[in-house]
């Protein structure tokens, strides 16, 4: 290689570095943007009145989003209750039982599930889940229950693929050792493989929660968006994300700023979840 080729190498490296840094730049810009729009209201009316305020009437100077924070966590938990057992079963089957052919079929179909736009999930929820709940269980059908079901299905691919990866990374010596001791296949899975992959599985749950907290379109369509903290599984509710998307169109002044403040709270929650997930994955690597 002559000298000129080395010079070109250097250019390629620089260009790629710039592009790599640009993703960081976007993150930074988004942060700055949300904070500059959202923080002023926290100063004006106080963090307590927003985060712990019970009343949301932004055109009448009440900016409380506490009910939405609680509702966001409720549906997220609901989604986890629906999605986590299914996803874990799916991941366990894929990594421990499935033959090559089934794996070849199941994995791509899960990825396809992840690729379906959320408005489609929402639409199916409105057309099928909501009327079924209304007819058989009562209420309007737009409820925590319907939202949890829809979100539970939506977070399946996230949880499955990350749990699957962590199950696959359990060394096969663990399984062989357990089987050699006379344990059955299920005993091996439940007492050796799953505990060994525990931190990765927990991380997958947390990331699934992050996905559920952030979901907007499908939630607006099936949640009913009422402002009250739901007291039954059949009550409608409004999450942080749907609050922003519902009202942004006509919001001006402090109303608009209040929606950005909602965004700040959402950002903090999602960052928290990601930090916890990363922490768990790191803890596992350290071990």
């Amino acid at each position, binding site marked *: 290689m002559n000298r000129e080729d080395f010079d070109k190498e250097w250019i390629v490296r620089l260009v790629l570095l710039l592009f790599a840094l640009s993703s960081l730049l976007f993150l930074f810009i988004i942060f700055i943007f949300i904070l500059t729009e959202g923080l002023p209201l926290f100063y004006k009316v106080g963090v307590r009145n927003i985060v712990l305020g019970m*009343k*949301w*009437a*932004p*055109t009448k100077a009440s900016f409380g989003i506490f*009910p939405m924070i609680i509702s966001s966590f409720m549906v997220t938990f609901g989604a986890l209750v629906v999605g986590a057992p299914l996803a874990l079963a799916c991941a366990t089957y894929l990594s421990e039982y499935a033959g090559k052919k089934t794996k070849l079929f199941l994995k791509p179909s899960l990825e396809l599930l992840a690729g379906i736009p959320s408005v489609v999930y929402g639409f199916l929820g*409105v057309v099928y889940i*909501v*009327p079924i709940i*209304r007819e058989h269980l*009562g*209420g*309007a*059908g*737009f409820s925590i229950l319907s939202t949890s079901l829809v979100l539970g299905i939506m977070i399946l691919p996230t949880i499955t693929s990350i749990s699957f990866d962590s199950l696959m990374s359990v060394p096969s010596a663990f399984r062989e050792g357990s089987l050699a001791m006379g344990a059955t296949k299920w005993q091996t899975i439940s007492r050796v493989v799953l505990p060994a992959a525990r931190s990765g599985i927990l991380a997958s749950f947390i990331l699934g929660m992050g996905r559920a907290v952030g979901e907007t379109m499908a939630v*607006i369509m099936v949640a*009913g*968006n*009422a*402002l*009250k903290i739901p007291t039954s599984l059949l*009550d*409608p509710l*409004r999450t942080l994300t749907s609050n922003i*998307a*519902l*009202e942004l*169109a*006509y*919001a*001006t*002044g402090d*109303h608009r700023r209040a929606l950005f403040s909602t965004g700040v709270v959402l950002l903090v929650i999602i960052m928290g979840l990601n930090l916890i997930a990363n922490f768990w994955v790191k803890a596992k690597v350290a071990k």
Partner: protein
Amino acid sequence: MPFSEKLAEHFRIERPRIVVDVQGGGSSAGIQACINKTVDIGMSSRELKGDEHILRQTVICHDGIALVVHPRNPTKDISFEKIRDIYSGRIRNWKELGWIDRNIDCVTREEGSGTRGAFEELVMGKSAIHDSIMVQDSNGSVKEVVATDPYAIGYISLGVVDSKVRALSVGGIAPTTENILAKKYRIVRPFLYLTSGEPGRNAKLFIDFVLSNEGQGILKKEGLIPVNE
């Protein structure tokens, strides 16, 4: 806003030299922009309040707001008081309106919407819309909820009402164009064009076009109530 876009399209055919740039954002934004003189014409789908009255207003048409229920719902008529009671959470069961023992699935619009603003002002008065009431973010999705849920009630722009839902008469008066023109049906809001002081030459041409037979015809086709009848 969608109506003004349509009007602007037709206006462009007549006066290709004048560019009409239509922007949405809600009534308060339209009024504010007009006060700040950043626009030639401000649009509002609610009446002016307080010191907003410094603006010069032209009513371009009226829009009725209809209370709608599922076609299977036998309720035909509802009083102002009952609507207030439902939306403020005091009445929660259809039994209290003489139908079956079933919760009312009540739907409202999101905070900031002009339709909600008009509904609050014209119907709710001092009572506030209760927190347990479901919220949808457009006329279309309110209609969709009411069309699929036999126990739902909602309010939408009269121009959007079709056979999927049934409009209730309010206090014995049906929400028809005749009743609105005769000022009998009272849940009606004006669509306003606002200018600060005398409109400029081009702005005046556009307002005149909107008030002309052609402009009013376009609005009528959209289900709105023209002002020149």
